[in-house]
């Protein structure tokens, strides 16, 4: 007997007069006490399923067919009152953004008490006692003291623990967790996941775990359903599906994820990206066919049904799936000739002054950082948020003024911010920003954005147009993109434009701040392949700031590990990953 069953569930929206399905004929079943993972990239419709359970679909979206049953009762057609009595009590939710899920003007105690009031606990002392018990269950120390705090006084990980405590407080039968760890640091992520697993086992709760992270799904889920374009393409026991995929899409995702151990291999970069809703609706046959390496004409006739028993696959060619392989050769980094360092950083420090004149508080963002980058070398900076890795990048780019230390770039001292130093710096080093949404002026055309450096140097229009064409071709972007504005591009395209701008005048050093985080796995694999190709062509060095260890291992030659503003360990990537010396590096690797 399953606790949550979706039968031919269809969710649709209306785009310009036509009804476009977002979830098409979904069949899933979740047994009591089990963890079902819904995995897929953005646009696969995985969040829509969680939202259908709460009936909190975005405006304009609605369930148009099928049933969604909880304990034999249809959640979709249930009266609002009946659903409300289930939600929060029998069905609990853990949100993606812990900080925005808590009310900033109420204390943790107020919010938990309110939750227990909803659960029917009458007296305030009882509510508080229950809150303390719940917080202790998620291993938060000083629970009584915590109740008097406001959300902004807690870290993201602590807020997420509070929310997990609230979700499990009513001993629900089903918990829906929508990307519960995406907004958190790696080390915190691991702890949150094991905490959820612990509570889930304690209470025998069923969990619907929505994630884009295959590795995470493999660790926590009993079963997984892989979604593409609003439909399940493959489902079955988590280990079986993720380790020996039978659907080409799952296989490609598996090959697109860089490995944390074992030999380094090239990534499989799926072409393009998931089509938009409208394009998907107009596709005949298998929705993955346009990107599938195995697709033939027979795939474009009718959508293949899910078939199989314990593990189901929707593909005509599933026996051939295991034959999809990554490109055999990993692009070799250009062998470094023994050369003078391109960037030499010695004792670099940045201290922020906050507080009033009388009660001054110093925040040490970066403490005595020393390292070198030789020409053509890719150096990674890893660490959790607040470890000072972004500040380090901004110091190198001269966007922050260092409190102490020196920066030597291509043989010239650029520590002091003189105009000559600035000119030298922007010729030698360029920056790729984290958030392409904010990094691209929404009023400019792509051609103007990528050749801004030429415009600043006073080049004429024809030169700039030619260079824009070259850059777009190099980034694998279609020439007509030159005339578009950033709003008309997809996330992956924007990040390519972002990289193109930094490469416009061929700098020797790129400072890249989290440039592949927040992208889908297949887009990330495309960008990593692009960076490796560009590296071979132009031999630039890179300071690659990232929290994703597997990406770092895949891409970089050296790694700097930062913890609380200090570089606690540095060395060749393989050495650091195989034999971590510092306790923090070990914790980081254990968590990943």
């Amino acid at each position: 007997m399953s606790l949550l069953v979706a039968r031919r569930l269809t969710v649709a929206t209306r785009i310009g007069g036509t009804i476009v399905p977002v979830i098409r004929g979904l069949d899933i079943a979740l047994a009591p006490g089990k963890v079902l993972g819904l995995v897929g990239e953005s646009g696969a419709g995985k969040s829509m399923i969680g939202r259908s359970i709460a009936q909190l679909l975005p405006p304009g979206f609605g369930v148009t067919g099928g049933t969604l049953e909880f304990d034999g009762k249809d959640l979709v057609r249930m009266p609002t009152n009946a659903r409300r009595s289930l939600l929060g009590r029998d069905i609990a939710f853990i949100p993606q953004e812990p900080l925005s899920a808590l009310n900033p003007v109420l204390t943790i105690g107020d919010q938990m008490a309110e939750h227990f009031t909803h659960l029917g606990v009458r007296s305030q002392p009882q509510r508080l006692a229950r809150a303390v018990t719940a917080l202790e269950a998620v291993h938060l120390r000083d629970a009584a003291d915590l109740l008097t705090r406001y959300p902004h006084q807690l870290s993201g990980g602590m807020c997420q623990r509070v929310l997990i405590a609230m979700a499990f407080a009513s001993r629900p039968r089903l918990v829906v967790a929508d990307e519960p760890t995406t907004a958190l640091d790696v080390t915190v992520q691991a702890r949150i996941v094991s905490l959820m697993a612990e509570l889930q086992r304690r209470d025998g709760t069923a969990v619907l775990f929505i994630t884009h992270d295959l590795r995470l799904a493999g660790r926590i889920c009993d079963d997984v359903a892989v979604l593409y374009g609003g439909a399940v393409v493959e489902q079955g026991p988590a280990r079986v599906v993720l380790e020996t995929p039978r659907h080409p899409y799952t296989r490609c995702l598996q090959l697109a994820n860089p490995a944390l151990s074992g030999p380094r291999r090239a990534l499989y970069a799926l072409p393009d990206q998931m089509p938009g809703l409208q394009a998907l609706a107009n596709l005949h046959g298998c929705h993955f066919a346009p990107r599938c390496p195995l697709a033939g004409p027979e795939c474009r006739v009718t959508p293949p049904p899910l078939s199989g028993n314990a593990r189901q696959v929707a593909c005509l060619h599933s026996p051939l799936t295991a034959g999809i392989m990554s490109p055999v050769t990993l692009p070799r980094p250009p062998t470094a000739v023994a050369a003078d360092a391109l960037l030499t950083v010695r004792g670099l420090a940045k201290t922020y002054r906050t507080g009033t004149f009388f009660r001054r508080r110093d925040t040490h963002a970066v403490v005595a950082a020393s390292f070198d980058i030789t020409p053509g070398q890719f150096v990674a900076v890893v660490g959790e948020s607040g470890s000072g890795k972004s500040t380090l990048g901004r110091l190198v780019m001269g966007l922050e003024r260092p409190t102490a230390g020196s920066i030597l770039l291509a043989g010239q001292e650029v520590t002091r911010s003189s105009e000559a130093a600035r000119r030298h710096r922007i010729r030698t080093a360029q920056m790729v920003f984290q958030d392409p949404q904010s990094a691209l002026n929404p009023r400019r055309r792509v051609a103007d954005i990528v050749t801004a450096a030429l415009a600043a140097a006073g080049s004429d229009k024809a030169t700039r147009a030619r260079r824009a064409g070259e850059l777009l071709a190099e980034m694998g972007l279609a020439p007509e993109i030159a005339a578009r504005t950033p709003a008309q591009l997809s996330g992956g395209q924007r990040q390519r434009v972002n990289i193109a701008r930094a490469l416009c005048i061929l700098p020797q050093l790129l400072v890249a701040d989290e440039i592949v985080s927040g992208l889908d796995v297949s887009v990330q694999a495309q960008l990593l392949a692009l960076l490796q190709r560009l590296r071979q062509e132009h031999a630039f060095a890179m300071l690659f700031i990232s929290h994703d260890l597997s990406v770092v291992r895949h891409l970089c030659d050296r790694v700097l590990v930062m913890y609380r503003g200090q570089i606690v360990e540095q060395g060749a990537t393989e050495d650091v990953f195989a034999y971590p010396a510092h306790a923090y590096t070990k914790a980081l690797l254990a968590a990943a």
Partner: protein
Amino acid sequence: MMPRWMRSARVLAGLGLAALMLVCAMAAPWLAPHDPDEQDLLAMLLPAAWQAGGDETHLLGTDGLGRDVLSRLLYGARVAMTVAVTASFGAALAGAITAYVAGYLGGWMDWLIGRAIDVWMSFPPVILSLILMTGLGTGARNVVLAIVLVDWTRFCRVLRAEVIVVTQRDYVTAARLAGFSHLRTVLKEIVPATMPLLVTLLTLEMGIAVVVEAILSFVGLGVKSDQIAWGQMIADGREAVYQAPWNLLAPVLAIFVAVAGFNLLGDGLRRSLDVRTLEGRE
């Protein structure tokens, strides 16, 4: 395709009313049936043409000195529009420059400008403008100056916040890293992003300027007494409100229509040009 602001009913209505006012002001010599200063002491306080005892040549009647109300109204629009346009552009210019300096440079400069505005805004605006007019003396140019001096803070305050938000965008940093100067970065990256807000404030300020000019003229501290202004007409018409109500009603309605036009235009532009809605679109 037409830009979004052109399709907004508010913007079109506001533009229509504002254009009507501007046409009246510019074409006053041709539109006015009489010389606005021509006195006809035999036809004082005539009611409007459609009322009993009205005269067809004086559509809205005459005032206490027998001057044609319609003609005075049309000529009054000239002062009102001149002041509205020049004063709001002046205030916008002064406020915007300080806002860009404060918001972009930040630090002590921002602190200094912020405190100056705090002090400035602690004076009640009407009192401040009355004091300024007493010191400067009457005249349209001084009315403009008084409005600019009082109202630049409004622009600076609102725009500064927006400038700070835009300055923190990575594309502004990227422009600096591409090698552009500070001036060029502000002009090409920040000004266009804040322009919709500036245009909206500017339009709303025009409505405010019309009212301020009317207030100052009403108490006799506005334009010189030989110039025709709506505020003066209200002051004059007040005494004969029962004999010839249009002496009072006509300028009041004119101010109402002008302010409503500018406010509708400003409000419509704010809704359709808002930076957030532009950048939020995927």
